[in-house]
């Protein structure tokens, strides 16, 4: 097994929820479905206020290729449509889902089914799955890599899915292989999930072309490029995609969603979210309808503790701080974490002492110290020369920085400035 460069060993804190089975949260009273829940241009609503919608009905879509439609996660009445999202008051009696498996005649049709189900990468990046599965002209896919690393601290959704819904996962993998034309599949799982490894190994024993590999515990092992390096020894070229190596990487939750969409006809209307952190009274793994207000989800987990000071959508390394607890759960919400004052302590930023801890920790072999310097000074050309856009924003550099410099924040700001400049 190859090693990717750099990486860190943060405290994983997964024991808070790793042993807790997924529980279903009761339907929320209202949902708010955002029009951008994927990496790509927003969808346009196809419903208007006052419309009655059924659960699973498409309510927003776009002609853009790199996008996935928005699906009503509950039945009910549309109460508002604005530039950002669609509000629906849930019809409690009719929001249960029943459907039938879909029939398809070709990989292209299968990919279309996946698109229509609104499926995107559910590990957090939310890249539309059907796009990922479509090999560009002249290229073919040989290997599907299933990302079960789940290297973000606290998060245990993929872990629980692999333990509880392994059979569905394996069926999903077979569908994904069919959709992209992969001959073999490798499932990479971090070694700290022995029960998941045992279960999936058991379930895939009869398939010669699917293997399970226990990968070392090191953040960001679940980074697409890092996992590919670990499992195949190959590096995805700068600016390129795994497809350039004939590889497609998909996340565990995504594979389960694909199975449900195709075999059961059930589009992406819910997802599993780890609600954890010491600011949450009763940490849980919760299956929740998309669009549920974060506040209601937190209430379902016993509410916030008195000293909770920061709420995060996603993992602690790459997730975003939530300012408004009424904002909804989206397709990419893998976790909702609440941190106490002690966990979320903020430090004064000091001068870089050139210790190069960030250089040693960077899994992309960048020089984060210079990226931060040039980004902050808005020397954007220099920042680009130092491969600004090869940064995956994993946060290792900021994590190890003894001067507490928010390196990733500076890098993100510089990237946005350059993108804006290019658009002009």
């Amino acid at each position, binding site marked *: 097994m190859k090693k990717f460069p750099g990486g860190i060993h943060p405290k994983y804190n997964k024991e808070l929820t790793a042993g807790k089975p997924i529980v279903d949260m009761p339907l929320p009273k209202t949902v708010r479905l955002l029009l951008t829940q994927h990496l790509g241009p927003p969808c346009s609503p196809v419903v208007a206020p006052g419309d009655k919608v059924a659960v699973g009905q498409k309510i927003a879509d776009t002609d853009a290729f790199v996008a996935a439609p928005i699906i009503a996660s509950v039945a009910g009445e549309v109460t508002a449509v604005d530039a950002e999202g669609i509000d629906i008051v849930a019809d409690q009696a009719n929001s249960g889902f029943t459907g039938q498996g879909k029939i398809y005649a070709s990989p292209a049709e299968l990919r279309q089914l996946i698109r229509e189900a609104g499926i995107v990468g559910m590990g957090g990046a939310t890249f539309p799955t059907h796009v990922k599965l479509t090999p560009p002209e002249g290229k073919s896919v040989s290997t599907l890599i299933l990302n079960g690393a789940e290297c973000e601290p606290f998060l245990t959704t993929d872990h629980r899915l692999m333990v509880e819904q392994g059979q569905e996962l394996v069926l999903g993998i077979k569908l994904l292989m069919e959709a992209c034309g992969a001959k073999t599949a490798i499932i990479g799982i971090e070694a700290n999930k022995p029960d998941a490894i045992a279960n999936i190994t058991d379930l895939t024993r009869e398939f010669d072309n699917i293997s399970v590999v226990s990968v070392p515990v090191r953040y960001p092992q679940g980074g697409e490029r890092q996992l590919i390096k670990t499992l195949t020894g190959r*590096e995805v070229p*700068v600016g390129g995609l795994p497809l350039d190596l004939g590889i497609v990487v998909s996340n565990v939750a995504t594979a389960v969603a694909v199975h449900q969409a195709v075999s059961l006809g059930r589009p992406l209307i819910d997802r599993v979210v780890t609600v954890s952190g010491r600011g949450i009274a009763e940490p849980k793994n919760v299956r929740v309808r998309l669009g549920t207000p974060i506040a209601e989800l937190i209430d379902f987990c016993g509410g916030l503790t008195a000293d909770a000071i920061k709420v995060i959508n996603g993992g602690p390394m790459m*997730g975003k701080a939530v300012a408004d607890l009424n904002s909804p759960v989206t397709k990419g919400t893998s976790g909702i974490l609440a941190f106490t004052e002690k966990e979320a302590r903020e430090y004064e930023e000091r001068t870089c*002492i050139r210790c*190069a801890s960030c250089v040693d920790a960077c899994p992309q072999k960048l020089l984060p110290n210079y990226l931060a310097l040039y980004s902050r000074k808005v020397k954007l050309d220099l920042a680009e020369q130092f491969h600004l856009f*090869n940064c995956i924003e994993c946060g290792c550099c900021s994590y190890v920085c003894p001067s507490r410099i928010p390196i990733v924040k500076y890098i993100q700001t510089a990237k946005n400035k350059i993108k804006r400049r290019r658009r002009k």
Partner: protein
Amino acid sequence: MSDKFLTGPSPHILGGKSISSIMWDVVIALIPVSLVSVLYFGLHAFILLITSLVSAMVIEGVFMAIRHKGFKHAGVIFDGSAAVTGLLIALIMPPTAPMWLVVIANAVAILLAKQAYGGIGNNIFNPALVARAFVFMAWPVIMTAWSNPLGLGNWFADLTTGATPLGGAEASLLEMFLGNTGGCLGETSALAISIGGLYLLLKGHIDWRIPVGFIGAAALFAFFSSQFSLYDVAFNLLAGGLLFGAVFMATDMVTSPTTKIGRLIFGIGCGLITMFVRKFASAPEGVTYAILFMNALVPLIDRYTVPKTFGEVKVS
């Protein structure tokens, strides 16, 4: 439930390292050499160490108070960086150096070599070595007045004039390894330096590439320039400030390269220049100038050793 939540950027968790945790670890790493210096040079060493440590912190505190018109920022003197500079300066002084000279050296280090550049992280040259270069030029006689080590236990005795191994003193390799020879306070004991260096390596505060490059290049230089004498290699590594410089001075984070290859090149450069001075220049020792010279090259070294990033590969 709080009304206002923090909205700071990701990552939302941070590792345990801070500037002060690193700096105080360096202070801990300097304890073995400091103890050995007191063991061999008695009260003289003890007084110099304390004088230097205190003066570095006081000078930095006074400067911060004046610069920021108050004591709001004076607390940085406890981040350990001034303490490191103070200790390092004492450890590169001859045992008979007077207290006033040590205070001047610290003033040069803190005010001229560090704060004039903008304070911690911004200086180009190693502050302790700038101070040494300064007082060495201004008071060459004092800075080359060497003493024999006191016998063990004679800690309150007067020092007697002696020489260093590089200056022709007779010393066995074992004595030089333990530190029982003439020299600057901290540089005589290879054993104590190694213990401190190992601690810093284990803590991850220094990269092996700098000391290994430094010592390795010096050893090879000595080996070939002496027509393959292993004694010459051992002598050159144990004598003078080479080990101390390789472990504690060249590894200063602020003034060394941040790229991995850069660190190796930097170390090799230090080793070669040190040996070049020792063999061909009129000065007996070259560690100070070798490191200062290489400090000046650090921005260039970094610029020309930018590593290939992950994924800079040819697709076959």
